[in-house]
């Protein structure tokens, strides 16, 4: 089968979703889209099931925290079309007071632990997930440790402060 170029893929996505899916960029040849949490399952399902695309492989789900943004939490999906050997990255940004997003476990079984890990570290709540518990951290932990408000070390510590270089 002929290789699907990013340009063709971009056209198909624009044709199908118009302004529901926006293109963020193409860093290092990996086409990156942004969509909203209401559309995400529809978008993922389309990528997976569209016969001309077949992004059947869910490479990864993770999240990122930008505390200064209006929508500080990003959930990031990496999909891979094994037929065309094309990867794609899809991002959804969430507001701090509403960190709910539908779960992708209905599409891929493998999403289960990836979403649990994302919940564990960022506190993103995946609606419809069958078993959303902490996975690597202890169950009674209260914080979501990968959020940027949790420093790695005690911020009051002074013995490591480098006044000359300001860090």
């Amino acid at each position, binding site marked *: 089968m002929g290789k699907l170029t990013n340009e063709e893929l971009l056209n198909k996505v624009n044709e199908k979703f118009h302004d529901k899916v926006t293109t963020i960029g193409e860093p290092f040849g990996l086409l990156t889209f942004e969509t909203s949490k209401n559309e995400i399952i529809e978008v993922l399902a389309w990528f997976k099931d569209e016969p001309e695309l077949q992004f059947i*492989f869910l490479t*990864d789900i993770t999240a*990122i925290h930008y505390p200064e943004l209006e929508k500080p939490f990003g959930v990031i999906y990496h999909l891979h079309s094994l037929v065309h050997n094309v990867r794609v990255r899809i991002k959804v940004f969430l507001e701090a007071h509403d960190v709910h997003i539908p779960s992708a476990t209905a599409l891929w079984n493998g999403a289960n632990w990836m979403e649990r890990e994302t919940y564990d570290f960022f506190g993103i709540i995946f609606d419809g997930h069958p078993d959303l518990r902490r*996975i*690597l951290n202890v169950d009674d932990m209260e914080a979501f440790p990968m959020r940027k408000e949790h420093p790695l070390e005690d911020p009051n510590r002074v013995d490591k402060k480098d006044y000359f270089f300001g860090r």
Partner: protein
Amino acid sequence: MHNHPVFTDNDPQAELSTLNLGPTHPATHGVFQNVLQLDGERIVSGVSTIGYIHRAFEKIAEHRPFYQITPLTDRLNYCSSPINNMGWHMTVEKMLDIKTPKRVDYMRIILMELARIADHLICNSILGVDTGALTGFTYIIQSREDIYEIYEEICGTRLTTNVGRIGGFERNFNQIAFQKIRKFLKTYPLVLKEFESLFNRNRIFIDRTKDIGAVSAETALSYSWTGPILRAAGVDYDVRAMNPYSSYDDLEFEVPVGENGDVYSRFLVRNEEMWQSLRLIEQAMAKIEKEPADIFHADVPDFYLPPKEEVYNNMEALIYHFKIVMGEIPTPHTEVYHSVEGANGELGFYLVNDGGRSPYRLHFRRPSFINYQMYAPMSRGMLLSDAIINMSSLNVIAGELDA
């Protein structure tokens, strides 16, 4: 084979027992806990608990300059740490747009394939131990020692290698290293052949492993499996072949594929991959001869630490050393995903950079973590002793599972 009902409601004697398999159990080879409900010896259900050796590498990585993240990657899959190290260097090189010389690429291939052999031989021989065949393990473990001695020659350490730097290697391979690699290429085929003749057509081994934990290609893909266990299920996805990195496309090798995804075909796929790795090392050794012998890193003074004696005697080297260590060199504001074929699957690095000295966010796509989540569901209905060898054949490494 194991699909008959394990217990029925009207059976007065049906009482389940709970077994804590792990977190420290000699048969699990690592810190894995599974709480199993057993009906006699048959598993009715299981729950995996992981995270016992979680070390927050992703958080630590956000506070470390790029070159100091390499030792963290050592401790992911510590049976084949050079692959993790190289994967990380290549991720940073991709982000910084550094092109490595061909010789560096071949050196990396040699080291990565040695690591793959070391990893596979441990996995396969331990699988033998779990089925009761200790002999193969006692023979083949010497070859891992040979590989570790090559590591020692190249980087000075054995397990957590921390080998290579951004842009290449910290030092050239010395003559003893090349000699040892050549010797290994001569001796290992004989060892592997003997190992295969111990197992491949061994009736007892086949009875224990055939049709155990068989997984279809669809299920394996749905669980995002990668690596030998996916290929054993019949999907020919290998990152080295599909998205060649580090000049793998210059070399010839085959991607072995299994048929029914059971423990036995995983074993065969790993054995065949070791043969292919030997082939790759041989080709890389031949190619390396034609490259200038004194090149072992790219010319990137902004990111490659200068030799220490130059730092003390040469102003320019001192400046670069200072800038690298203090993180004074601007890096692009971008994000990059790079993956390598680790010994147990696609090891991915998702790096988001904000231009500073350390990543804004670094996520490891750890194949063990993703492969292991099917373990409890697939154990349902298995005999406990089969579940043990099934875990062994998944080659889940605790360090990579928990990051």
